[in-house]
C-alpha cells in the first residue's frame, strides 16, 4: 500500500494486491495502523471499498455453486439447493464481509472447477472452438489466482490437474482420433494448465516487486543483495559502495543463513572467560561473536598477509577467489584467529577469537583462504553484497560458522561463532557476505576509528535481476517459519468438522454486539453426513459393478463419479493436508473444504431421491423431509444472525442461550 516491502508466510502477493487495489480505488492513502482488533477506523479509511472485493467474491460464489451443479449434470432443483445452502452459511457470510482473503480464495477455487467443467462439457461437442479455448484458459487463470491468493489454493489446482490428466489419459486411449489430433489436445492442455499458471504466478510477483520497492519491516529476513535492491533502508547505506573488495577494504560481514537472527561478524574488547561453567578451559583471547545489530565493532579490515598497510593502495588490488587474507578487527586491530581449542558452546568445533599476543604458548593462526561459493570462474573477484564467501582457515581447514547458540552473560548474549571442519559438509551458516564496504584511507589507528564511525558513502547502485529476486523471495516465503505460538482461538483440524470451535472477530466497545465466525450447525452436520453417505454408496456401487451388477445406468454412474471426484475430492484435498501442517490453525482454514462439501450435499440428496426412492410416495416423502430440513437450516441461520452480522446487541441471557456448545467462546460482558 505504502509500497513498503513486507513478507507474509501464508500466501503470495496476489490477494494482498487485490485488497490494496480496492483500497486504492476507494482513495485510501495507507495511513492507518492495523494494529489492534476492534480499533475504530478513522475517517480516511474507505472501509467500504476495502471490504468490497471479499464481499463481492463471496456473493459471486453463490451463483457459481448453482452453475457447478448444473454443469455436473444435476437438476435445477439440486443446483438451486446448493446455491441456497451457500447463501445461508453463516461462516461464509462472516468471512466475506470482512477484509479477509478466504472468500477470494473460495471464489477462485470454484471458478477453476466451474470453468474446467464447462471446458470438458464443450469438449464433447466442439473441441478447439472459441468457448472451448476460453474455458480452458480460464481454468488455468483461476487456478493461478487461487494459488496466488493463498498457498492453500495449490490443493485445488492439483485436484483439477489430476482430473484433467485422467481425462487426457482417456483421450489418449480414444482410437477414433488421429495421433496429431491427440497431440494437439495434449499440448493445448499443457499450455493452459501448466504454462499459463506458471506465467501468471511470475507476473504476480513481478507486479508485487515493482509496486513494493521501499524497504519495510521484514527486510532483515532477506539477503543483503535483496535488501540493497529496495529503496531506503539498506540501499541508502550501500548505494555507491565500491563493488570489488580490495586489500585494505573496510567491510562488515553478514551471515547468509541468518538464523536464529540475521547478524554480523563482531568482536569486542572482552575476552573468553578462563574457565567455563562446566569446567572446560578456553584460550582467554578476545571474543568473536555474531551481533544482530549494526555496530562500529562489526567493521573488519581485509589485509594482505604479506604487507603491513591497512589502507587501499592505488590502484586498489582486488581480492580474488582462493587468495589468502587476514581479517583485522577495525576497533581493536586484532587478527581474526582460530585454533584447536573447543568452542564455548559447541565443543566439537573450534573456538574463534581475535588473537591477543600475551599467551606465548599458542601461536597465532590468522590466515584465511577466501572461497567464493557462488563464483562463476576461479578467478572471480570478491564483490560487495553479491559474493557469498566462506572463510576457510589455512592451518586447520575449518570454516567460519555461525553456530546459532546464544552465549551466556559473559558474551553479552550475542551469538556464538565457531570454526567447523569444512569436510562436515556445506551449510549456509558457514557463508558470509560483505554488506557495508568502503576503501580504508587512514593509516593511523586514531583516524581509522573516526573513519569507522562515519557512515559509508559512495556512488553506483546495482539491481538484482527479477528472476533472482523472485527465486529468493519465493524461497524465503516457503521457508519462513511462523513461531508455533498458541492462540486463544486456534484449533485443531479435528474440531472443525464438528464445529467445536469459534473465533471472535470483533466486540463492540460498549455493547455486547459482536461478530463471531460460527458455521450453520445444521449445514455442517448434514454436509459431513453427506460425505460419509457418498463414500459408502460409492464403495457399494464400485464393488457391485466389479461383480457386473449395474445398479446405475452408465451415464449417471459417470456423473456420480465426477461429482464425487470434484466435490468430495475437493473437500479432502482442502482438509486433510492440514493434519500435517505444524503452523497455528484456525477455523477459517476449513472454509474452502466446507464449500466443496456443501456442493456435494445436494448432489447426494438428488441421487437418493432419483435412484434409491423407488416409489412416488416415498419420493414425495423424501422431498418433504428435505424441505423441512432446509427450513431448519434457515432457522439456525436466523438465530445465529446477530453473531454473524454483529449489528444487534444481545442481552447476556440471549447470548448464553446461543452458546450451544461449551467450546464456543461467546463473549459475555459482566455488568
Amino acid at each position: 500500500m505504502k509500497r513498503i516491502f513486507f513478507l507474509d508466510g501464508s500466501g503470495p502477493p496476489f490477494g494482498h494486491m487485490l485488497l490494496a487495489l480496492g483500497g486504492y480505488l476507494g482513495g485510501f492513502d495507507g495511513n492507518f495502523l492495523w494494529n489492534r482488533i476492534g480499533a475504530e477506523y478513522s475517517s480516511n479509511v474507505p472501509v467500504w471499498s476495502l471490504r468490497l472485493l471479499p464481499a463481492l467474491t463471496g456473493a459471486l460464489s453463490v451463483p457459481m455453486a448453482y452453475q457447478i451443479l448444473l454443469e455436473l449434470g444435476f437438476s435445477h432443483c439440486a443446483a438451486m439447493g446448493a446455491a441456497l445452502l451457500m447463501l445461508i452459511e453463516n461462516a461464509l457470510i462472516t468471512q466475506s464481509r470482512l477484509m479477509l482473503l478466504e472468500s477470494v480464495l473460495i471464489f477462485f477455487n470454484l471458478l477453476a472447477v466451474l470453468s474446467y467443467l464447462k471446458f470438458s462439457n464443450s469438449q464433447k461437442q466442439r473441441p478447439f472452438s472459441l468457448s472451448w479455448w476460453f474455458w480452458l484458459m480460464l481454468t488455468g487463470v483461476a487456478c493461478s489466482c487461487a494459488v496466488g491468493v493463498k498457498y492453500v489454493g495449490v490443493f485445488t489446482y492439483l485436484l483439477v490437474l489430476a482430473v484433467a490428466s485422467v481425462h487426457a489419459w482417456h483421450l489418449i486411449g480414444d482410437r477414433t482420433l488421429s495421433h496429431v489430433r491427440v497431440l494437439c489436445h495434449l499440448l493445448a492442455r499443457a499450455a493452459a494448465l501448466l504454462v499459463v499458471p506458471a506465467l501468471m504466478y511470475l507476473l504476480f510477483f513481478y507486479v508485487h516487486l515493482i509496486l513494493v520497492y521501499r524497504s519495510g519491516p521484514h527486510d532483515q529476513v532477506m539477503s543483503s543483495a535483496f535488501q540493497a535492491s529496495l529503496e531506503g533502508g539498506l540501499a541508502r547505506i550501500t548505494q555507491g559502495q565500491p563493488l570489488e573488495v580490495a586489500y585494505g577494504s573496510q567491510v562488515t560481514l553478514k551471515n547468509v543463513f541468518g538464523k536464529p537472527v540475521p547478524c554480523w561478524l563482531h568482536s569486542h574488547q572482552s575476552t573468553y572467560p578462563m574457565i567455563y561453567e562446566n569446567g572446560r578451559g578456553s584460550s582467554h583471547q578476545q571474543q568473536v561473536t555474531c551481533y544482530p545489530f549494526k555496530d562500529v565493532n562489526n567493521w573488519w579490515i581485509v589485509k594482505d598477509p604479506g604487507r603491513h598497510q591497512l589502507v587501499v593502495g592505488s590502484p586498489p588490488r582486488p581480492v580474488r577467489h582462493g587468495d589468502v587474507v587476514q581479517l583485522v578487527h577495525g576497533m581493536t586491530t586484532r587478527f581474526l584467529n582460530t585454533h584447536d581449542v573447543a568452542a564455548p558452546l559447541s565443543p566439537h568445533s573450534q573456538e574463534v577469537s581475535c588473537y591477543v599476543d600475551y599467551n606465548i604458548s599458542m601461536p597465532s593462526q590468522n590466515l584465511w583462504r577466501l572461497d567464493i561459493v557462488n563464483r562463476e570462474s576461479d578467478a572471480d573477484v570478491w564483490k560487495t553484497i553479491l559474493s557469498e564467501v566462506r572463510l576457510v582457515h589455512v592451518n586447520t581447514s575449518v570454516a567460519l560458522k555461525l553456530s546459532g547458540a546464544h552465549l551466556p552473560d559473559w558474551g553479552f548474549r550475542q551469538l556464538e561463532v565457531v570454526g567447523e571442519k569444512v569436510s562436515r559438509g556445506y551449510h549456509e551458516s558457514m557463508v558470509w557476505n560483505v554488506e557495508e564496504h568502503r576503501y580504508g584511507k587512514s593509516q593511523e589507528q586514531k583516524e581509522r576509528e573516526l573513519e569507522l564511525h562515519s557512515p559509508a558513502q559512495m556512488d553506483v547502485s546495482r539491481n538484482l535481476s527479477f528472476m533472482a529476486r523472485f527465486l529468493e523471495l519465493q524461497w524465503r516465503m516457503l521457508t519462513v517459519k511462523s513461531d508455533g505460538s498458541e492462540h486463544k482461538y486456534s484449533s485443531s483440524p479435528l474440531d472443525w468438522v464438528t464445529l467445536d470451535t469459534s473465533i471472535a472477530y470483533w466486540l463492540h466497545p460498549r455493547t455486547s454486539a459482536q461478530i463471531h465466525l460460527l458455521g450453520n450447525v445444521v449445514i455442517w452436520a448434514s454436509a459431513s453426513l453427506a460425505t460419509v453417505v457418498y463414500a459408502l454408496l460409492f464403495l457399494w456401487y464400485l464393488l457391485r459393478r466389479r461383480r457386473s451388477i449395474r445398479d446405475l445406468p452408465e451415464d449417471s454412474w459417470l456423473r456420480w463419479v465426477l461429482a464425487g471426484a470434484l466435490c468430495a475430492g475437493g473437500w479432502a484435498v482442502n482438509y486433510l493436508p492440514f493434519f500435517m501442517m505444524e503452523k497455528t490453525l484456525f477455523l477459517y482454514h476449513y472454509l474452502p473444504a466446507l464449500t466443496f462439501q456443501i456442493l456435494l450435499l445436494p448432489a447426494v440428496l438428488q441421487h437418493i431421491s432419483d435412484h434409491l426412492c423407488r416409489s412416488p410416495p416415498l419420493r414425495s416423502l423424501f422431498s418433504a423431509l428435505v424441505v423441512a430440513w432446509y427450513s431448519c437450516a434457515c432457522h439456525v441461520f436466523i438465530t445465529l444472525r446477530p453473531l454473524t452480522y454483529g449489528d444487534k446487541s444481545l442481552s447476556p441471557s440471549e447470548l448464553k442461550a446461543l452458546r450451544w456448545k461449551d467450546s464456543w467462546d461467546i463473549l459475555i460482558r459482566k455488568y
Partner: protein
Amino acid sequence: MPPAVGEGSARSELRPRRGRCGHQVTRAVGPDVAAAAAARSPKRPARGSRRFEAAGRWALLALVTLLSFATRFHRLDEPPHICWDETHFGKMGSYYINRTFFFDVHPPLGKMLIGLAGYLSGYDGTFLFQKPGDKYEHHNYMGMRGFCAFLGSLLVPFAYLIVLELSKSLPAALLTAALLTFDTGCLTLSQYILLDPILMFFIMAAMLSMVKYNSCANRPFSAPWWFWLSLTGINLAGALGVKFVGLFIILQVGWNTISDLWHLLGDLSLSVVTVGKHLTARILCLIVLPLTLYTATYAVHFRVLNKSGPGDGFFSSAFQARLSGNNLHNASIPEHLAYGSVITVKNLRMAIGYLHSHRHLYPEGIGARQQQVTTYLHKDYNNLWIIKKHNTNADPLDPSFPVEFVRHGDIIRLEHKETSRNLHSHYHEAPLTRKHYQVTGYGINGTGDSNDFWRIEVVNRRFGNRIRVLRSRIRLIHLVTGCVLGSSGKVLPKWGWEQLEVTCTPYLKETLNSIWNVEDHINPKLPNISLDVLQPSFPEILLESHMVMIRGNNGLKPKDNEFTSKPWHWPINYQGLRFSGINDTDFRVYLLGNPVVWWLNLLSIALYLLLGSIIAVAVQRGARLPAEVEGLSQVLLQGGGQLLLGWMLHYFPFFLMGRILYFHHYFPAMLFSSMLTGILWDTLLRLCAWSLASSSLARGVYVVGLLSLLLGTAYSFYLFHPLAYGMVGPLAQDPRSPMAGLKWLESWDF
C-alpha cells in the same frame, strides 16, 4: 547366456557349502518354481537338458550366496572397537542380557535379536559401549557382528530370487545380485552391530515371500500358498518390530493385496463365497498374524526387562512401579488422597518432572518478586507439597480430626513442605512464556490470600470422585484467574537453576503439559496398599510405550545451524557417513555407496520412467506389439512397477519427515532401486538384441552389454573396497593414499 560358462566348476566346489550357508534360500527356490521358471525362460531349453538346467540354477544361486557371504564376512572383526551407532545398539543388546529397562525410539525386536545373538555367542553384557572408538578387548563382539553380517549377506540371494521371480530372467537376477554384492554401502552397513541389516533382512524377506505367493496365485489355498502368505505376515511383523520404517513395506504388501483382491472380485467365475475366503485368509495372515507377533515382541520385551534402568524417567509413575530397583517397586502407599497428605506431583508429559519450589525468589523485573516454582526432574525433598483445605489452616494430621478425602472439584491449597509457602498465581506474566501467568510461592506459614486457591479436577473420572495415587490425572485450576497450572517445558536461565518453567495458562486446552498425577503420598492416618494393585495392564503399557516412542521420534529435531543430510542427497550419493576414524593414522571406515552402482541406479530410474511411459502410451493408443516385445513390456511394467513402488515408498516419505535424517535411511530404497536396475537393463538389452536382425549379432550385443555391466561393477568394487574394509594411511588428497584419485565428489570425506 554368459553365466553358464562358470557353472560346471562352481557347482562341483560349492556343493558342500550349500548345506551351511545357502540352506534357507535353496529351500526357498523349490523344485516346482525353478521348473516353472525354466519353462517360461525366453531361451527354451531342449527337453533332455532340463535337469541339467535346473541344477545349474541351483549352483548359480549357491555361487551368489557364497560370494555374498564371502564379501560380508571378510575382515568382519576389524576394527576391534566400537563403530558409530554400535554404541547404541550394542549397549541395548547388553541391556537385554542384563535385563535392565531402557528406552529407545525404535521398537524392540531388532535389539532383542542382537541381545540374543550376543547371549548365544557367549557375550556376558558387561561391556559398557560408552562411545565410538572404545576397544572391545576381551569382550566377545563377533557373535553380534556375525549375526548382523549373516542377515546382511542374505539380502543378496533374496534380491536375486525376487528378480528371478519377477522377470524369469537369470541374467537380470545375476546383475542385481552383482550390484548388491559389490555395493560398498550395503557391505559396510551389514558388517556392524546395527539395526539396518536386520530391518533390510525383514523387508526383503517380506518382499520375497509376497512375490512367491503371487506366483502361487494359480493354486490358491494349496500348502505353498499358505506357507508364503503367512511367511509374508511374519516378515512384516519383523520389519515393523525393528524400526517403524517397516511400515512402508506393509503399505507395499497392502497395496499388492488390495489389487490382488480387486482382480479376484472382478473374476466372475469365482463365487462371492470364494472371494470371501480369500479375503479372510489375507486378513488372518497379513493383519491378525503380524499384529499378534508384534504384540508378542513387546510382551517379551517387558517380561525380559524387569529391572530399573536408564529408561525409567521417560515413563509414567505407574509404569515405573513394575520395575524392580525403582523406588516405586513394591512400595506401599495410601491409595486415595486425603487432606493433610504429603505428596509429590508429577507432570504427565515426558521429561518435565515434579512440581518443585525452593528458597529463591524470582529476580527483579521478572514478575512479582516471590518464591520460584519450577519443575525438576530429580527426586528431592523440595518436591514435597502438603495438600490443605482452602479455608482452614488447622493441622489436619491432628488425630482428633477425621480423615477427609479430597474429591474432584474441591477447592484446595498446596503448601510447600520445606518453605511453608502456598502455590500461588496472579496476573503477572510468566518469566518465559509471556502470554501465561506467573506461578509463585506466597504467604508465610501457610497463610496467604485468595490467589492461593486451586480447584482440583480429575480428567479420567472412572474411579469415582476420589483421587487415586498414580492413576488419576488431575488438573489444577486457579480459582481467581481461571487458568490451569502447567509447565511450558522451557528451561529457565541461571537464576532458576536451569529447571523448567511452571506457568498458569489461560488457554484451557487439554494438553499433557497441564495434567499432573500424584506420585509419592505420605499420610500416616491412612492404610497403605501395595502399588501392585495399580499396575497398568499390558495394553496400557503397550500404548504408553508407543506414545513415548513417537514423542521421542518427534523430539529428534535437527538444529537450524547444523549440517544435516537431506533426502535429495541420498540417491546421488552426495555424502557418506563416517563409521570410524578421522585422522590419517586411524583405521577409517566410511559408509558410502559404490558410486558406479548408485549412479547406474539413478540413471536406470530415469530410463525406466521414460521407457515405461512410452510403452504405456503405446498400449493405450492401441499399438500392436510383437509377441516378444509384448512379453518384455509386461515384465517391465508389472515386475518393474512393483519395484518402483517399493523404491518410492521407501524414499519419498522421508521428504515429509521432520525428524533428523541420516544417509543410511536410504538403503532399503536402494535395494529396490538395484533390483529395478537389474530388470531394466536386462529388458533394455533384450530389446536392443531383438531390434537387430541377425541372431548372432543380437546375441553378441546382449552378452557384451551384460558382461560389461557385471565386470564394471566388480572393478568399481575393487577400486572402492577400502571404504568398507577399512583403510589406514593418508587421506585421499595425498597421492600415497589407498583412495588417491577416487575422491570424485568434493563432499566425500575420506
